[in-house]
Protein backbone atom coordinates (compact mmCIF):
# COMPACT_ATOMS: atom_id res chain seq x y z
CA UNK A 1 0.00 0.00 0.00
CA UNK A 2 1.47 3.40 -0.91
CA UNK A 3 2.52 5.60 1.98
CA UNK A 4 0.15 8.43 2.74
CA UNK A 5 2.14 11.56 1.90
CA UNK A 6 -0.66 14.06 2.53
CA UNK A 7 0.54 16.81 4.86
CA UNK A 8 -1.48 19.00 7.17
CA UNK A 9 -1.59 22.65 6.28
CA UNK A 10 -3.31 25.50 8.09
CA UNK A 11 -5.02 26.76 4.93
CA UNK A 12 -3.46 25.66 1.62
CA UNK A 13 0.25 25.08 0.88
CA UNK A 14 0.47 28.30 -1.16
CA UNK A 15 -1.26 30.50 1.40
CA UNK A 16 0.76 28.91 4.22
CA UNK A 17 3.94 29.57 2.30
CA UNK A 18 2.89 33.19 1.64
CA UNK A 19 2.32 33.87 5.34
CA UNK A 20 5.50 32.09 6.43
CA UNK A 21 7.40 34.19 3.86
CA UNK A 22 5.77 37.31 5.29
CA UNK A 23 6.75 36.30 8.82
CA UNK A 24 10.31 35.60 7.69
CA UNK A 25 10.51 39.03 5.99
CA UNK A 26 9.16 40.68 9.13
CA UNK A 27 11.82 38.96 11.26
CA UNK A 28 14.50 40.03 8.77
CA UNK A 29 13.43 43.70 8.95
CA UNK A 30 13.05 43.51 12.75
CA UNK A 31 16.62 42.21 12.99
CA UNK A 32 17.84 45.26 11.05
CA UNK A 33 16.29 47.66 13.56
CA UNK A 34 17.73 45.56 16.40
CA UNK A 35 21.27 45.45 15.01
CA UNK A 36 21.66 48.91 13.49
CA UNK A 37 22.02 50.70 16.84
CA UNK A 38 24.66 48.53 18.49
CA UNK A 39 28.42 48.29 17.82
CA UNK A 40 30.48 47.22 16.03
CA UNK A 41 29.55 49.83 13.42
CA UNK A 42 30.66 48.98 9.91
CA UNK A 43 31.51 52.56 8.82
CA UNK A 44 34.06 51.52 6.23
CA UNK A 45 31.70 49.02 4.61
CA UNK A 46 28.84 51.58 4.63
CA UNK A 47 31.07 54.11 2.84
CA UNK A 48 32.15 51.46 0.32
CA UNK A 49 28.53 50.55 -0.33
CA UNK A 50 27.52 54.24 -0.61
CA UNK A 51 30.13 54.57 -3.35
CA UNK A 52 28.78 51.46 -5.11
CA UNK A 53 25.16 52.61 -4.84
CA UNK A 54 25.68 56.31 -5.48
CA UNK A 55 28.66 56.94 -7.68
CA UNK A 56 28.23 53.86 -9.84
CA UNK A 57 24.58 54.73 -10.54
CA UNK A 58 25.32 58.30 -11.64
CA UNK A 59 25.73 57.76 -15.41
CA UNK A 60 22.44 55.87 -15.78
CA UNK A 61 20.55 58.21 -13.46
CA UNK A 62 21.93 61.31 -15.24
CA UNK A 63 20.93 60.07 -18.67
CA UNK A 64 17.48 58.96 -17.59
CA UNK A 65 16.73 62.08 -15.56
CA UNK A 66 17.86 64.37 -18.38
CA UNK A 67 15.78 62.55 -20.99
CA UNK A 68 12.72 62.46 -18.73
CA UNK A 69 13.01 66.26 -18.29
CA UNK A 70 13.21 66.89 -22.04
CA UNK A 71 10.49 64.41 -23.03
CA UNK A 72 8.05 65.49 -20.33
CA UNK A 73 8.48 69.16 -21.27
CA UNK A 74 8.03 68.48 -24.97
CA UNK A 75 4.95 66.34 -24.36
CA UNK A 76 3.33 68.90 -22.03
CA UNK A 77 3.96 72.00 -24.16
CA UNK A 78 1.20 71.48 -26.81
CA UNK A 79 -1.54 70.99 -24.20
CA UNK A 80 -0.49 74.04 -22.19
CA UNK A 81 -0.04 76.16 -25.36
CA UNK A 82 -3.58 75.29 -26.42
CA UNK A 83 -4.83 77.13 -23.32
CA UNK A 84 -2.25 79.89 -23.67
CA UNK A 85 -0.47 78.66 -20.55
CA UNK A 86 2.93 77.74 -22.01
CA UNK A 87 4.54 80.11 -19.49
CA UNK A 88 3.41 77.73 -16.73
CA UNK A 89 5.60 75.00 -18.17
CA UNK A 90 8.51 75.39 -15.67
CA UNK A 91 6.07 75.28 -12.76
CA UNK A 92 4.28 72.22 -14.09
CA UNK A 93 7.54 70.38 -14.76
CA UNK A 94 8.95 71.30 -11.35
CA UNK A 95 5.91 69.98 -9.55
CA UNK A 96 5.82 66.79 -11.64
CA UNK A 97 9.53 66.06 -11.29
CA UNK A 98 10.00 66.93 -7.63
CA UNK A 99 6.76 65.47 -6.34
CA UNK A 100 6.60 62.25 -8.32
CA UNK A 101 8.82 61.58 -11.30
CA UNK A 102 12.21 62.24 -9.72
CA UNK A 103 11.73 59.88 -6.76
CA UNK A 104 9.88 57.27 -8.80
CA UNK A 105 12.26 57.17 -11.78
CA UNK A 106 15.33 57.10 -9.51
CA UNK A 107 13.87 54.40 -7.29
CA UNK A 108 12.87 52.22 -10.23
CA UNK A 109 16.30 52.53 -11.83
CA UNK A 110 18.01 51.84 -8.50
CA UNK A 111 15.74 48.83 -7.93
CA UNK A 112 16.90 47.46 -11.27
CA UNK A 113 20.56 48.31 -10.93
CA UNK A 114 21.34 48.30 -7.22
CA UNK A 115 18.62 45.93 -5.94
CA UNK A 116 19.45 43.20 -8.43
CA UNK A 117 23.17 43.57 -7.77
CA UNK A 118 22.67 43.26 -3.99
CA UNK A 119 20.38 40.25 -4.47
CA UNK A 120 22.82 38.50 -6.80
CA UNK A 121 25.88 39.30 -4.67
CA UNK A 122 24.37 38.05 -1.41
CA UNK A 123 22.76 35.09 -3.18
CA UNK A 124 26.08 34.07 -4.63
CA UNK A 125 27.77 34.50 -1.24
CA UNK A 126 25.10 32.32 0.34
CA UNK A 127 25.43 29.60 -2.30
CA UNK A 128 29.22 29.47 -2.05
CA UNK A 129 29.13 29.46 1.78
CA UNK A 130 30.90 32.83 2.02
CA UNK A 131 28.27 34.02 4.51
CA UNK A 132 28.94 30.94 6.69
CA UNK A 133 32.68 31.56 6.35
CA UNK A 134 32.18 35.10 7.60
CA UNK A 135 30.17 33.84 10.55
CA UNK A 136 32.74 31.25 11.62
CA UNK A 137 35.50 33.83 11.41
CA UNK A 138 33.86 35.83 14.18
CA UNK A 139 32.04 38.40 12.05
CA UNK A 140 28.32 39.07 12.23
CA UNK A 141 27.44 38.66 8.52
CA UNK A 142 24.03 40.31 8.93
CA UNK A 143 25.64 43.46 10.26
CA UNK A 144 28.51 43.45 7.78
CA UNK A 145 26.48 42.63 4.67
CA UNK A 146 22.86 43.60 5.30
CA UNK A 147 22.97 46.57 7.68
CA UNK A 148 25.70 48.28 5.66
CA UNK A 149 23.89 47.82 2.34
CA UNK A 150 20.51 48.93 3.66
CA UNK A 151 22.06 52.02 5.27
CA UNK A 152 23.88 52.81 2.02
CA UNK A 153 20.72 52.64 -0.10
CA UNK A 154 18.75 54.57 2.54
CA UNK A 155 21.35 57.39 2.53
CA UNK A 156 22.13 57.44 -1.16
CA UNK A 157 18.71 57.18 -2.84
CA UNK A 158 17.52 60.57 -1.48
CA UNK A 159 20.77 62.15 -2.71
CA UNK A 160 20.34 60.50 -6.10
CA UNK A 161 16.72 61.71 -6.20
CA UNK A 162 17.80 65.32 -5.61
CA UNK A 163 20.40 64.89 -8.32
CA UNK A 164 17.81 63.42 -10.71
CA UNK A 165 15.46 66.33 -9.94
CA UNK A 166 18.23 68.77 -10.81
CA UNK A 167 19.27 66.98 -14.00
CA UNK A 168 15.63 66.57 -15.05
CA UNK A 169 15.00 70.28 -14.52
CA UNK A 170 18.11 71.11 -16.55
CA UNK A 171 16.80 68.92 -19.37
CA UNK A 172 13.48 70.68 -19.11
CA UNK A 173 15.21 74.09 -19.15
CA UNK A 174 17.02 73.20 -22.39
CA UNK A 175 13.72 72.25 -23.97
CA UNK A 176 11.94 75.39 -22.69
CA UNK A 177 14.85 77.61 -23.66
CA UNK A 178 14.93 76.21 -27.17
CA UNK A 179 11.30 77.23 -27.71
CA UNK A 180 10.52 80.14 -25.39
CA UNK A 181 13.98 81.73 -24.91
CA UNK A 182 13.71 81.78 -21.13
CA UNK A 183 16.85 82.46 -19.10
CA UNK A 184 18.11 79.95 -16.51
CA UNK A 185 17.39 82.42 -13.68
CA UNK A 186 13.82 83.04 -14.78
CA UNK A 187 13.27 79.32 -15.26
CA UNK A 188 14.48 78.46 -11.75
CA UNK A 189 12.59 81.38 -10.17
CA UNK A 190 9.40 79.90 -11.63
CA UNK A 191 10.45 76.43 -10.50
CA UNK A 192 10.99 77.46 -6.87
CA UNK A 193 7.86 79.62 -6.84
CA UNK A 194 5.83 76.55 -7.78
CA UNK A 195 7.36 74.31 -5.12
CA UNK A 196 6.44 74.31 -1.46
CA UNK A 197 8.42 73.09 1.53
CA UNK A 198 6.02 70.14 1.77
CA UNK A 199 6.88 69.11 -1.81
CA UNK A 200 10.58 68.96 -1.04
CA UNK A 201 10.36 67.33 2.38
CA UNK A 202 7.83 64.74 1.21
CA UNK A 203 10.05 63.93 -1.76
CA UNK A 204 13.04 63.39 0.54
CA UNK A 205 11.09 61.29 3.04
CA UNK A 206 9.61 59.20 0.24
CA UNK A 207 13.08 58.64 -1.21
CA UNK A 208 14.39 57.47 2.17
CA UNK A 209 11.58 54.90 2.25
CA UNK A 210 12.32 53.82 -1.35
CA UNK A 211 16.03 53.46 -0.54
CA UNK A 212 15.31 51.40 2.54
CA UNK A 213 12.95 49.19 0.53
CA UNK A 214 15.46 48.61 -2.29
CA UNK A 215 18.25 47.67 0.12
CA UNK A 216 16.09 45.53 2.35
CA UNK A 217 14.41 43.62 -0.47
CA UNK A 218 17.74 42.99 -2.25
CA UNK A 219 19.34 41.75 0.97
CA UNK A 220 16.34 39.61 1.95
CA UNK A 221 16.15 37.92 -1.44
CA UNK A 222 19.90 37.29 -1.54
CA UNK A 223 20.08 36.13 2.07
CA UNK A 224 17.24 33.65 1.51
CA UNK A 225 18.38 32.60 -1.94
CA UNK A 226 17.80 28.93 -2.73
CA UNK A 227 20.92 26.82 -3.22
CA UNK A 228 22.48 26.49 -6.65
CA UNK A 229 23.25 28.90 -9.47
CA UNK A 230 19.56 29.09 -10.32
CA UNK A 231 19.00 30.48 -6.83
CA UNK A 232 21.30 33.44 -7.54
CA UNK A 233 19.33 34.32 -10.68
CA UNK A 234 16.08 34.01 -8.81
CA UNK A 235 17.37 36.20 -5.99
CA UNK A 236 18.40 38.93 -8.45
CA UNK A 237 15.15 38.76 -10.36
CA UNK A 238 13.03 38.58 -7.21
CA UNK A 239 14.80 41.63 -5.78
CA UNK A 240 13.85 43.78 -8.78
CA UNK A 241 10.26 42.58 -9.08
CA UNK A 242 9.48 42.81 -5.36
CA UNK A 243 11.25 46.18 -4.91
CA UNK A 244 9.42 47.73 -7.89
CA UNK A 245 6.09 46.39 -6.66
CA UNK A 246 6.64 47.79 -3.17
CA UNK A 247 7.85 51.15 -4.54
CA UNK A 248 4.60 51.62 -6.47
CA UNK A 249 2.55 50.68 -3.39
CA UNK A 250 4.58 53.08 -1.24
CA UNK A 251 4.18 55.84 -3.85
CA UNK A 252 0.42 55.37 -3.77
CA UNK A 253 0.23 55.37 0.02
CA UNK A 254 2.58 58.33 0.42
CA UNK A 255 0.50 60.30 -2.09
CA UNK A 256 -2.57 59.83 0.12
CA UNK A 257 -0.67 60.90 3.23
CA UNK A 258 0.90 63.96 1.56
CA UNK A 259 -2.47 65.02 0.13
CA UNK A 260 -3.88 64.83 3.64
CA UNK A 261 -1.26 67.38 4.79
CA UNK A 262 -1.75 69.49 1.66
CA UNK A 263 -5.43 70.04 2.36
CA UNK A 264 -6.25 73.58 3.51
Amino acid at each position, binding site marked *: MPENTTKNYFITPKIDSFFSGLASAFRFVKRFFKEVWFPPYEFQEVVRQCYQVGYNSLPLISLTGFIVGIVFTNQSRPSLSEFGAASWLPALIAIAIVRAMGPLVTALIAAGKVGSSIGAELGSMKVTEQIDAM*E*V*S*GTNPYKFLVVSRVLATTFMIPILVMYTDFVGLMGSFLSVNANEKVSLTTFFIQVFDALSFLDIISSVLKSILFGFTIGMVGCYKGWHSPKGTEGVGRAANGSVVMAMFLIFIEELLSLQIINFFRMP
Partner: protein
Amino acid sequence: MEKKVIEIRGLKKSFGDNHVLRGVDLDLYKGENVVVLGKSGTGKSVLIKIVVGLLTQDEGSVIVLGKDVAKLKPRELNELRLKIGFSFQASALYDSMTVKENLEFPLVRNIKNLTRAERTKEVEEVLDAVGLMQTLNQMPSELSGGQRKRIGIARTLILKPEIMLYDEPTAGLDPITCMDINNLINQVRETYNTSSIIITHDLTCARDTGDRMAVLLDGVFGATGNFEEVFVGSDEERVKSFYDYNFITNEK
Protein backbone atom coordinates in the same frame (compact mmCIF):
# COMPACT_ATOMS: atom_id res chain seq x y z
CA MET B 1 45.32 10.16 28.08
CA GLU B 2 45.23 13.45 26.14
CA LYS B 3 42.49 15.90 26.98
CA LYS B 4 39.25 15.90 24.98
CA VAL B 5 38.76 19.00 22.85
CA ILE B 6 35.42 17.94 21.36
CA GLU B 7 32.87 15.68 23.01
CA ILE B 8 29.70 14.83 21.08
CA ARG B 9 26.94 12.80 22.74
CA GLY B 10 23.64 11.50 21.34
CA LEU B 11 23.58 14.04 18.53
CA LYS B 12 20.38 14.02 16.47
CA LYS B 13 19.46 16.26 13.56
CA SER B 14 16.60 16.06 11.09
CA PHE B 15 15.58 18.18 8.13
CA GLY B 16 11.84 17.60 7.86
CA ASP B 17 11.34 13.88 7.44
CA ASN B 18 15.01 13.32 6.64
CA HIS B 19 16.65 12.07 9.86
CA VAL B 20 20.29 12.77 9.06
CA LEU B 21 21.97 12.18 12.41
CA ARG B 22 20.33 9.64 14.71
CA GLY B 23 22.46 9.64 17.84
CA VAL B 24 26.09 10.35 17.02
CA ASP B 25 28.80 10.04 19.71
CA LEU B 26 32.33 11.23 19.02
CA ASP B 27 35.37 12.35 21.01
CA LEU B 28 38.28 14.30 19.58
CA TYR B 29 41.46 14.36 21.64
CA LYS B 30 44.15 17.03 21.64
CA GLY B 31 46.53 16.64 18.72
CA GLU B 32 44.42 13.95 17.05
CA ASN B 33 43.05 13.81 13.50
CA VAL B 34 39.69 12.04 13.26
CA VAL B 35 38.32 11.32 9.80
CA VAL B 36 34.56 11.10 9.38
CA LEU B 37 33.63 9.09 6.31
CA GLY B 38 30.35 8.35 4.66
CA LYS B 39 28.45 8.56 1.43
CA SER B 40 27.12 11.91 0.19
CA GLY B 41 24.06 13.09 2.11
CA THR B 42 24.79 11.08 5.26
CA GLY B 43 25.22 14.20 7.41
CA LYS B 44 29.01 14.49 7.62
CA SER B 45 29.05 18.23 6.91
CA VAL B 46 25.98 18.73 9.12
CA LEU B 47 27.99 17.24 11.99
CA ILE B 48 30.83 19.77 11.79
CA LYS B 49 28.43 22.64 11.11
CA ILE B 50 26.76 21.79 14.43
CA VAL B 51 30.19 21.71 16.10
CA VAL B 52 30.91 25.28 14.97
CA GLY B 53 27.37 26.51 15.71
CA LEU B 54 26.26 27.12 12.12
CA LEU B 55 23.42 24.62 12.68
CA THR B 56 21.74 23.60 15.91
CA GLN B 57 21.02 20.03 16.87
CA ASP B 58 17.58 18.65 17.66
CA GLU B 59 18.92 16.53 20.53
CA GLY B 60 22.23 15.70 22.17
CA SER B 61 25.18 17.79 23.25
CA VAL B 62 28.33 19.16 21.64
CA ILE B 63 31.04 20.24 24.06
CA VAL B 64 33.92 22.10 22.41
CA LEU B 65 36.92 23.09 24.56
CA GLY B 66 34.73 22.56 27.62
CA LYS B 67 31.83 24.68 26.39
CA ASP B 68 28.38 23.46 25.38
CA VAL B 69 27.97 25.07 21.93
CA ALA B 70 24.15 25.15 21.99
CA LYS B 71 24.07 27.02 25.31
CA LEU B 72 26.52 29.77 24.39
CA LYS B 73 25.44 33.39 23.95
CA PRO B 74 26.31 34.94 20.54
CA ARG B 75 29.36 36.72 21.91
CA GLU B 76 30.64 33.58 23.66
CA LEU B 77 30.03 31.55 20.52
CA ASN B 78 32.06 34.07 18.50
CA GLU B 79 34.92 33.80 20.99
CA LEU B 80 34.83 30.02 20.73
CA ARG B 81 34.74 30.16 16.93
CA LEU B 82 38.03 32.02 16.90
CA LYS B 83 39.63 28.85 18.29
CA ILE B 84 38.11 26.73 15.53
CA GLY B 85 39.26 26.83 11.92
CA PHE B 86 36.67 25.75 9.37
CA SER B 87 37.83 24.88 5.88
CA PHE B 88 34.82 24.87 3.56
CA GLN B 89 34.25 22.40 0.75
CA ALA B 90 34.26 25.10 -1.93
CA SER B 91 36.86 27.17 -0.03
CA ALA B 92 34.36 30.05 0.44
CA LEU B 93 36.89 32.75 -0.41
CA TYR B 94 35.36 36.23 -0.62
CA ASP B 95 35.11 36.89 -4.36
CA SER B 96 35.32 40.66 -4.08
CA MET B 97 38.59 40.62 -2.12
CA THR B 98 42.17 39.78 -3.10
CA VAL B 99 43.96 36.86 -1.45
CA LYS B 100 45.65 39.31 0.93
CA GLU B 101 42.34 40.93 1.89
CA ASN B 102 40.76 37.48 2.34
CA LEU B 103 43.51 36.50 4.75
CA GLU B 104 43.47 39.83 6.56
CA PHE B 105 39.71 39.76 7.04
CA PRO B 106 39.62 37.60 10.23
CA LEU B 107 42.51 39.61 11.68
CA VAL B 108 40.96 43.01 10.96
CA ARG B 109 37.65 41.88 12.41
CA ASN B 110 38.94 40.22 15.56
CA ILE B 111 42.31 41.69 16.56
CA LYS B 112 41.93 45.45 16.69
CA ASN B 113 45.36 46.53 17.92
CA LEU B 114 47.43 45.06 15.07
CA THR B 115 49.34 47.51 12.89
CA ARG B 116 49.26 47.18 9.12
CA ALA B 117 52.85 45.87 9.12
CA GLU B 118 51.97 43.23 11.72
CA ARG B 119 48.96 42.15 9.69
CA THR B 120 51.05 41.84 6.54
CA LYS B 121 53.60 39.76 8.45
CA GLU B 122 50.88 37.38 9.68
CA VAL B 123 49.45 37.08 6.16
CA GLU B 124 52.85 36.33 4.67
CA GLU B 125 53.52 33.76 7.37
CA VAL B 126 50.38 31.71 6.62
CA LEU B 127 50.81 32.13 2.88
CA ASP B 128 54.31 30.79 3.24
CA ALA B 129 52.97 27.87 5.30
CA VAL B 130 50.66 26.87 2.44
CA GLY B 131 53.32 27.62 -0.18
CA LEU B 132 51.40 30.27 -2.12
CA MET B 133 53.26 33.49 -1.48
CA GLN B 134 53.04 34.46 -5.17
CA THR B 135 49.23 34.72 -5.02
CA LEU B 136 49.20 37.58 -2.49
CA ASN B 137 47.55 40.15 -4.76
CA GLN B 138 45.51 37.80 -6.95
CA MET B 139 41.72 37.56 -6.93
CA PRO B 140 40.14 34.20 -5.97
CA SER B 141 38.80 33.83 -9.53
CA GLU B 142 42.41 33.70 -10.78
CA LEU B 143 43.31 30.71 -8.59
CA SER B 144 43.11 27.00 -9.40
CA GLY B 145 40.94 24.65 -7.31
CA GLY B 146 43.92 23.42 -5.30
CA GLN B 147 45.18 26.94 -4.69
CA ARG B 148 41.74 28.01 -3.50
CA LYS B 149 41.69 25.14 -1.01
CA ARG B 150 45.11 26.10 0.29
CA ILE B 151 44.17 29.76 0.65
CA GLY B 152 40.95 28.68 2.41
CA ILE B 153 43.04 26.70 4.88
CA ALA B 154 45.49 29.60 5.24
CA ARG B 155 42.60 31.94 6.10
CA THR B 156 41.52 29.66 8.93
CA LEU B 157 45.11 29.36 10.19
CA ILE B 158 45.64 33.08 10.51
CA LEU B 159 43.86 33.14 13.89
CA LYS B 160 45.95 30.14 15.05
CA PRO B 161 43.04 27.84 15.88
CA GLU B 162 43.24 24.92 18.31
CA ILE B 163 40.79 22.83 16.31
CA MET B 164 40.52 22.45 12.53
CA LEU B 165 37.39 21.23 10.77
CA TYR B 166 37.96 20.24 7.15
CA ASP B 167 34.87 19.77 4.97
CA GLU B 168 35.81 17.56 2.00
CA PRO B 169 39.33 19.00 1.64
CA THR B 170 40.13 16.96 -1.47
CA ALA B 171 36.76 17.06 -3.24
CA GLY B 172 37.05 17.88 -6.93
CA LEU B 173 40.86 17.85 -7.04
CA ASP B 174 43.23 15.73 -9.11
CA PRO B 175 45.19 12.96 -7.30
CA ILE B 176 48.46 14.91 -7.16
CA THR B 177 46.79 18.01 -5.71
CA CYS B 178 44.90 15.73 -3.27
CA MET B 179 48.24 14.41 -2.07
CA ASP B 180 49.50 17.99 -1.59
CA ILE B 181 46.40 18.85 0.45
CA ASN B 182 46.81 15.70 2.57
CA ASN B 183 50.41 16.69 3.26
CA LEU B 184 49.28 20.21 4.11
CA ILE B 185 46.73 18.85 6.63
CA ASN B 186 49.48 16.86 8.34
CA GLN B 187 51.84 19.83 8.21
CA VAL B 188 49.19 22.08 9.78
CA ARG B 189 48.83 19.65 12.68
CA GLU B 190 52.58 19.61 13.27
CA THR B 191 53.16 23.34 12.87
CA TYR B 192 50.07 24.68 14.63
CA ASN B 193 49.49 21.77 17.04
CA THR B 194 45.84 21.44 16.00
CA SER B 195 43.28 18.70 16.54
CA SER B 196 41.12 18.06 13.48
CA ILE B 197 37.94 16.51 12.22
CA ILE B 198 38.28 15.75 8.52
CA ILE B 199 35.11 15.09 6.57
CA THR B 200 35.72 13.12 3.41
CA HIS B 201 34.67 10.21 1.25
CA ASP B 202 38.18 9.88 -0.14
CA LEU B 203 39.87 6.90 1.53
CA THR B 204 43.34 7.97 0.40
CA CYS B 205 42.85 11.25 2.23
CA ALA B 206 41.50 9.32 5.24
CA ARG B 207 44.46 6.91 5.29
CA ASP B 208 47.07 9.65 4.87
CA THR B 209 45.69 12.15 7.37
CA GLY B 210 43.63 10.31 9.98
CA ASP B 211 44.62 8.70 13.27
CA ARG B 212 41.12 7.40 13.73
CA MET B 213 38.25 6.72 11.31
CA ALA B 214 34.53 6.97 11.98
CA VAL B 215 32.15 5.79 9.27
CA LEU B 216 28.65 7.27 9.25
CA LEU B 217 26.05 4.66 8.34
CA ASP B 218 22.35 5.49 8.62
CA GLY B 219 22.95 8.46 10.90
CA VAL B 220 25.23 6.72 13.44
CA PHE B 221 28.87 5.70 13.45
CA GLY B 222 28.78 2.15 12.10
CA ALA B 223 32.50 1.54 12.43
CA THR B 224 35.28 3.32 14.32
CA GLY B 225 38.97 2.63 14.87
CA ASN B 226 42.19 3.06 12.94
CA PHE B 227 42.26 2.59 9.17
CA GLU B 228 43.13 -1.11 9.23
CA GLU B 229 40.59 -1.93 11.96
CA VAL B 230 37.79 -0.19 10.12
CA PHE B 231 38.47 -1.13 6.53
CA VAL B 232 40.80 -4.10 6.28
CA GLY B 233 39.21 -6.27 8.93
CA SER B 234 35.64 -5.04 8.57
CA ASP B 235 32.74 -7.48 8.32
CA GLU B 236 30.26 -4.71 7.65
CA GLU B 237 29.25 -4.98 3.99
CA ARG B 238 28.69 -1.25 3.47
CA VAL B 239 32.11 -0.39 4.93
CA LYS B 240 33.78 -3.04 2.79
CA SER B 241 32.03 -1.78 -0.34
CA PHE B 242 33.25 1.72 0.48
CA TYR B 243 36.82 0.41 0.67
CA ASP B 244 36.46 -1.69 -2.48
CA TYR B 245 35.05 1.22 -4.42
CA ASN B 246 37.85 3.60 -3.38
CA PHE B 247 40.80 1.27 -3.83
CA ILE B 248 39.84 -1.60 -6.13
CA THR B 249 38.13 0.77 -8.60
CA ASN B 250 41.19 3.01 -8.59
CA GLU B 251 43.53 0.06 -9.15
CA LYS B 252 41.61 -1.13 -12.22
